[in-house]
């Protein structure tokens, strides 16, 4: 090994704590890149391959009852490559070992051959025989959650006919990677599953012989969904077409896309912050090293080392620091990516391992890491290169201090000499002080953006479950029913109150903006399920008016008082123009709400219900469950009290993980900045401080000078950090917000305080570690060494 390299390694070993502090900050950036890019690419690749191999359709539509003959017309539409019809329906399940009713979505398999689109991937057993009437293939997650293996049986209420079905196999489908039951907010594999049955059996059960109620299309290379969708809608309109949509609105796909968007945002927003801070730390430390090594630099030049060799030496130092960071970032990143992949398999149903280490993500993160260190090193390296060999021989002149505004102020304020030294130190390196403040502020901001989450989620839970959806259960009906069902529901055992609600699939339009949505119509006196405004007050639609969720109003660019167009996708498919009477604060979905009576009036028909919301006596739950399983016309039940606990538990677990990661990251940054700052100051001021000790200053007084500056910077960083944290959190809310859900922006004073406490504690600890060195300062040695 070259002697200079040996020197390098020894120098690194001597400064290990500083090196590690920088490397860890850099590692955070590398880690997030490996994690986000790695998982994102894995997810994208897996998705693409899976969609391709299992022929995931590109356009989807439901209908009430369309004749099979229509298929040839659909196939003839320009842009359509493959079209396939199916029968799809909702069923209530009675599962062994489960008191409450479960629900399922039955999907037909063709009589002959395998599906041309949305091909299920059979994992165990086999698909049901084409002519079997009581065989079923189920999703893996559903089978696992219920402990089912092929051969097991359960009972299902198929359109009012109770039947015992035998499981023949388990499968996955690209159409159901993310599975949400009707009305559910989180996947619940125990109580909801996808069931595949032969077409013939379903046609008989749902009275759809010679007809279909679901169609999927794959497009030609130049076929465009935006053109095919209206054409398909037109063909299906007479048959109760429920509005065609592309992958962009397919439930499962939308959720995965949402996840991908977040991963992309993660890879874009956070790593640059870490890289910037590491570059600053490298810059600060290298500047000091170059100053200290003036003699060595001069010597190298005198001995005939070229400028490139001098530059190379210091660049190597920076590169080694970055390599340590990269190694740490890679290993932690890979480990976290595994964990994240595991988390994904909890929510998403993929056929194969999601996360494979990506050469690309490692290469990108390493390149970014090395570039960061190089960038931070440039200034110091250039200074070393520019030092003329002769000047490098003479000791550096003491840094020049000027009397400036700080001094005049300090004199006026009668600061003590040590306080003056603190202030002058900041005044001498204003750039360094400013960047230290920014870096420490970034830690505060990162902590705030982590701890604002629980508050935001509390607000979601409070609003969604305790102000708006207060029903214990939703009884989902197989179609729109006359109001007598509400009366029937009231008589079910354990039901304390029942309120009807109607879902009306519609397209809402304002100018060129439109959204496909299920409008919810309720009675004005409904108390179980309702919407509220930002202040938590119930909002009811006035007369024929429609209430929109804030986000929907934003998407359609309307304010209360504007009029929008509503084209219904059911019944006579009427198009109505309605005034927007108010907006409501809703966190899940893009909601639109109307008065049920007004809706009935507009449609010139008696009021109907598609859902009955109930409040129940939980002691009598068992009886209610039993009754629900046998009630004809019931497509499923959603038990909101269970959703509430599941939601809180899932969230609590994930929040704990995220919070720990963010705290670790913020502490690493703070310690990295403060510790390096303190070490550098100690190095710059060793003589000064030793002189003070010699003339009789106590250790505490001398430490005050050193720690005073750091703690002052840390305090100054707090308000900056609060502002940054506020902006971070706000940006996060914006980036999370989608058509599926949004986060409320909740900033409590506790969030500010907690972030500040953690950061101030971390910088105090870092400063105290350095203080121990002051206590051990060898006065004689320091005074003897030549600066």
């Amino acid at each position, binding site marked *: 090994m070259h*002697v200079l390299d040996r*020197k390098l390694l020894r120098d690194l070993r001597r400064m290990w704590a500083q090196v590690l502090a920088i490397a860890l900050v850099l590692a955070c950036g590398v880690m997030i890149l490996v994690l986000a890019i790695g998982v994102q690419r894995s997810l994208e690749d897996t998705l693409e391959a899976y969609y391709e191999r299992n022929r995931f359709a590109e356009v989807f539509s439901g209908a009430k009852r369309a004749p099979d003959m229509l298929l040839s017309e659909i196939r003839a539409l320009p842009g359509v490559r493959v079209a396939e019809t199916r029968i799809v329906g909702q069923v209530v399940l009675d599962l062994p070992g489960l008191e409450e009713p479960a629900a399922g979505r039955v999907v037909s398999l063709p009589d002959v051959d395998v599906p041309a689109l949305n091909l299920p991937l059979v994992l165990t057993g086999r698909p049901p025989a084409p002519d079997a009437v009581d065989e079923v293939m189920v999703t893996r997650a559903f089978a696992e959650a219920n402990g089912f293996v092929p051969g097991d049986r359960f009972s299902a209420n198929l359109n009012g006919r109770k039947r015992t079905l035998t499981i023949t196999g388990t499968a996955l489908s690209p159409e159901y990677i993310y599975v949400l039951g009707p009305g559910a907010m989180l996947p619940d594999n125990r109580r909801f599953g996808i069931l595949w049955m032969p077409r013939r059996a379903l046609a008989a059960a749902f009275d759809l012989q010679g007809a279909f109620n679901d169609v999927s299309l794959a497009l030609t290379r130049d076929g465009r969904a935006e053109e095919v969708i209206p054409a398909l809608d037109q063909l299906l309109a007479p048959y109760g077409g429920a509005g065609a949509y592309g992958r962009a609105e397919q439930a499962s796909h939308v959720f995965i896309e949402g996840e991908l968007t977040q991963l992309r945002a993660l890879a874009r927003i956070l790593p640059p912050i870490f890289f910037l801070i590491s570059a600053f730390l490298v810059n600060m430390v290298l500047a000091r090293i170059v100053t200290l090594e003036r003699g060595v630099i001069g*010597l190298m*030049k*005198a*001995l005939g080392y070229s400028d490139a060799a001098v530059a190379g030496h210091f660049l190597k130092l920076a590169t080694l620091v970055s390599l340590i960071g990269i190694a740490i970032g890679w290993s932690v990143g890979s480990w976290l990516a595994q964990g994240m992949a595991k988390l994904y398999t909890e929510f998403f149903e993929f056929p194969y391992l999601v996360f494979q280490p990506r050469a690309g993500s490692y290469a990108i993160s390493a390149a970014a890491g090395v570039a960061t260190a190089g960038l931070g090193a440039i200034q110091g390296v250039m200074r070393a290169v520019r030092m003329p060999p002769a000047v490098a*021989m003479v000791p550096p002149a003491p840094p020049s201090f000027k009397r400036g505004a700080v001094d005049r102020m300090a004199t006026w304020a009668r600061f003590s000499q040590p306080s003056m030294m603190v202030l002058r130190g900041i005044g001498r390196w204003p750039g360094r002080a400013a960047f230290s403040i920014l870096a420490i502020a970034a830690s505060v901001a990162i902590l705030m953006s982590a701890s604002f989450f629980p508050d935001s989620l509390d607000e979601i839970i409070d609003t969604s479950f305790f102000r708006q959806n207060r029903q214990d259960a939703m009884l989902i009906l197989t179609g729109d029913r006359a109001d007598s069902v509400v009366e029937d529901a009231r008589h079910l055992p354990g039901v304390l109150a029942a309120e009807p609600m109607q879902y009306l699939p519609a397209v809402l339009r304002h100018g060129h903006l439109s959204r496909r949505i299920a409008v919810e119509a309720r009675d004005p006196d409904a108390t179980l399920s309702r919407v509220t405004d930002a202040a938590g007050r119930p909002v009811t639609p006035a007369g024929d008016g429609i209430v929109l969720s804030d986000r929907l109003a934003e998407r359609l660019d309307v304010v209360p008082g504007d009029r929008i167009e509503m084209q219904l996708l059911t019944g006579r498919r009427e198009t109505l123009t309605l005034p927007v009477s108010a907006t409501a604060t809703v966190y899940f979905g893009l909601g639109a709400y109307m008065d049920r009576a007004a809706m009935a009036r507009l449609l010139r028909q008696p009021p109907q219900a598609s859902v009955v919301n109930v409040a129940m006596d939980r002691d009598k739950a068992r009886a209610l469950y039993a009754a629900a399983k046998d009630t004809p016309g019931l497509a499923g039940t959603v038990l909101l009290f269970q959703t509430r606990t599941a939601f809180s538990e899932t969230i609590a677990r994930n929040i704990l993980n995220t919070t720990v990661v963010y705290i670790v990251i913020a502490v690493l940054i703070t310690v990295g900045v403060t510790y390096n700052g303190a070490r550098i100051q100690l190095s710059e001021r060793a003589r000064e401080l030793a002189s003070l000790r010699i003339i009789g200053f106590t250790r505490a007084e001398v430490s005050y000078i050193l720690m005073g500056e750091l703690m002052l910077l840390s305090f100054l960083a707090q308000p900056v950090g609060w502002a940054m944290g506020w902006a971070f959190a706000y940006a996060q809310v914006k980036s999370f917000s989608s058509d599926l859900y949004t986060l409320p922006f909740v900033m409590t004073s506790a969030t500010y305080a907690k972030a500040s406490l953690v950061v101030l504690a971390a910088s105090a600890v870092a400063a105290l570690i350095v203080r121990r060195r002051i206590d051990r300062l060898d006065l004689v040695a320091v005074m003897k060494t030549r600066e």
Partner: protein
Amino acid sequence: MSELIFRSEGLTKVYRTGDVSVYALRGVDMRLHAGELTVLLGPSGSGKSTLLNILGGLDRASEGRAWFRDHELTAMTDRELTAYRRDHVGFVFQFYNLVASLTARENVELVTEIARAPMPAAEALAMVGLDHRLDHFPAQLSGGEQQRVAIARAIAKRPEVLLCDEPTGALDSKTGIQVLEALERINRDLGTTTVVITHNAGIQAMAHRVVFFADGRINEVRENATRARPAEITW
């Protein structure tokens, strides 16, 4: 008369700091002979170090010309000066300038790794009597030992010239003499042209030639008919 190794004509160096100009050299005409040991004497601030730095290719003159053999130093580019220092010059500094994190041997290897025909580091250290201190770090060596490591480092490349700026300036008389003995032996055994700047007038006794400097100019050049051995020098 032996061959000339350094020659200068009207060598001038002006430092400009702000609006003050400091004349460090005011037209130095000088000749140094190959194989000789020359001592440079003169009051502080008279320009000795400046001259040595220019001759060693560490610094540039403001005016005038200087040659190393046939090569005009004052016309060289930075790159050429670097190569010149690497291939021909050895430096010894007042404060040794050892790299603290390298052992004695490694400090010498700093040179032998880039030189064209170096001697082994251990051999160079043996020449200054430090073969038993190869693996000591500078902090574990006395001042005199450190300076001898610096000399070993300077001579390990077998330079043609050895330029020493106050090599004994930081040393007491006993260790100073050890250092001078090392310089004298190298000059004698390897024939290395040696220039020594000193404030100690006693050292002139061991030189072939003594150059007296004052106020940026050469005042007087004296040749010694007989030379004293370092041990005889009084401090």
